[in-house]
């Protein structure tokens, strides 16, 4: 395998809670994304997926482990982070809240261009207005000049999301990290934004890491998927493998409750993801695992392992991999 464009190796992120306990938001994560690849990081709130995205772009320093850009560990100096962010851009969740309400569309998009001195370094000698217009047009806002002087409150939800994407695109990043890019958008707009991400990959060779709880989104655009649960990747592989033949009971349950899914009997898990300051021993999913509750794990002779033996961290080598004792017993 070639050197991935962006890679996380054994990432751990610990936060101190107010009560003084350590909460492990990330507990050993390997993920990697190749140039021009679309990777979906899927999980519920509390799975650590947003922390992973923030760590990948250097907004959060890992407690242990490394982020590598083309094989070189990230430098957390101001210069190092600026270099990273001119190549990797993040599009934040909640378009409405991420745009400055007192800034025009032009100003919002031009900010990054100025910060990174992109007018001076433009090979075609374009002006700032040209670059802003080009980015808006690429994000599907046409004609761009008509939007220059608009304020966020004058835009629809879909347009706001496009302005945010344009702000990221203006820097010609090689990778875009998008946190829930369509979750706050209406159904009919959603497809348009996803199509835009696919088009950027096709036209500009841009890779995308999309963080989402929406499995349909992953099916729509992602090449590969990593499913996260409580700070770990519990299943990863190509989108077809993971979503058509899910092997982890958690992935199976997540898929089964998607309303459009009819090939799986709905398994509604009780409770919610536990607090990351109290990660269960053994398999971290075992307290909610339907296979363990229904005795299927016991039949396979792994119930004890589920409760007591922790699982190794999955490597990000592109194969379909699952962190589950039951799966290991079946495959093994």
């Amino acid at each position, binding site marked *: 395998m070639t050197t991935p464009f962006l890679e996380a190796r054994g990432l751990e992120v610990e936060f101190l809670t107010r009560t003084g306990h350590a909460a492990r938001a990330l507990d050993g994560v390997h993920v990697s994304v190749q140039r021009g690849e679309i990777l979906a990081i899927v999980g*519920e*709130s509390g799975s650590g997926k947003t922390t992973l995205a923030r760590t990948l772009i250097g907004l959060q320093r890992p407690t242990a482990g490394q982020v590598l850009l083309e094989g070189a560990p990230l430098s957390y100096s101001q210069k190092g982070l600026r270099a990273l962010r001119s190549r990797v851009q993040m599009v934040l969740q909640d378009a409405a809240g991420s745009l400055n309400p007192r800034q025009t569309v032009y100003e919002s998009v031009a900010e990054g261009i100025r910060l990174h001195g992109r007018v001076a370094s433009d090979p075609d000698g374009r002006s700032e207005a040209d670059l802003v217009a080009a980015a808006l047009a690429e994000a599907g806002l046409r004609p761009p000049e008509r939007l220059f002087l608009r304020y966020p409150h004058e835009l*629809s*939800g*879909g*347009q706001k999301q496009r302005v945010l994407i344009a702000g990221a695109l203006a820097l010609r990043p090689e990778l875009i990290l998008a946190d829930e890019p369509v*979750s706050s958008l*209406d*159904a*009919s*707009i*959603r*497809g*348009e*934004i*996803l*199509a835009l991400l*696919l088009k950027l990959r096709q036209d500009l060779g841009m890779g995308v890491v999309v963080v989402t*709880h*929406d*499995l*349909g989104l992953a*099916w*729509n*655009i992602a090449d590969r998927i990593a499913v996260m649960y409580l700070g770990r990747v519990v299943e990863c592989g190509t*989108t*077809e493998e993971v*979503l*058509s033949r899910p092997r982890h009971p958690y992935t199976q*349950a*997540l*898929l089964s*409750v*998607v*309303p*459009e*899914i009819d*090939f799986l009997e*709905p398994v*509604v*898990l*009780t409770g*919610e993801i536990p607090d990351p300051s109290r990660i269960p021993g053994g398999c971290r999913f075992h307290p909610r695992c339907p296979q363990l509750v229904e005795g299927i794990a016991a039949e396979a002779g792994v119930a004890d392992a589920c409760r007591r033996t922790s699982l190794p961290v999955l490597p990000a080598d592109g194969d379909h991999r699952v962190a589950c004792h039951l799966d290991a017993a079946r495959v093994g």
Partner: protein
Amino acid sequence: MTGTRTEPLLDLVDVTVTYRTSEGPLPAVRGIDLTVGPGEVVGLAGESGCGKSTLASTVLRLQPSGAAVTGEVNVLGQDVQTIAWGKLRALRWAGASIVFQGALHSLNPVQRIGAQIAEPIRVHEPDLAKDAVARRVEELLEQVGLATSRKRSYPHQLSGGQRQRVMIAMALACRPQLVVADEPTTALDVMVQAQILDLLRDLVRELGVGLLIISHDLSVLADLCDRVAVMYAGRVVESGRAEQVFTDPLHPYTRALSGAFPRIGDPAARYAPAGLAGDPPDPRELPPGCSFEPRCPLAVPECAEAEPPLVEVRPGRPVACIRVGER
């Protein structure tokens, strides 16, 4: 549909809502007929700005004072838009209640949730002893799947799903016959959404309440509802039995909505997200013909001439489109 034609709990007759704004009148709801019977779950689907939340607010006369409502909004046989204030007050919570969108913003952040659930009970049954109210609060918490100890929690100590359960407990506090739920699962994770939908289903079955549920996600409604109505630009463009509307949509807008979320496993949806170009029209500047015409993939010149009426194109399937049957 419930077999016998009993009196519906909610009966909307040609309801319109027009907001007065500085830029002139804004027609948010433009003539809606809808009924909800006992034990029936009816869904209202549509995008932001289509008027669905405005319509929900009229059910308990909660629309803003600048909104003019015409038509009839009959709740348990009384037109809530015209009845006296005292009667309306008796009807709110005890006859019909609303689960609002955005549980975080609807709960009081500095009051324990037990006190918040108790409030409507104390207002409606002032003679009820204190410990009876407390017992009722605990019952309600259990009913919505929360530990009774949660009554001492503040909203920020609960997760999004738990807060939504509190909202549902509040809506049930005075044993209403009709519950309106505005986007009850939006912003929740899939698994939590599934839990809340299961809870709503169980409550309808156990309590026999009528439920009007509003959502932008047609697939959620298809799963939960008996009937759904799809709204676009203030009007119903299609309605019918839920699974039929979802699996065999007749209006091109409904088709776009039902196609927006792919069927996982369907090879045709790989690298092909389905979308709809453009945005819904500004209600102040509605197109002269069909309001969906500017975005419609099937539009022909005639579509821009007159707004198509809602016509029953098949038994139980009214659709407002002159191109029904075209693909």
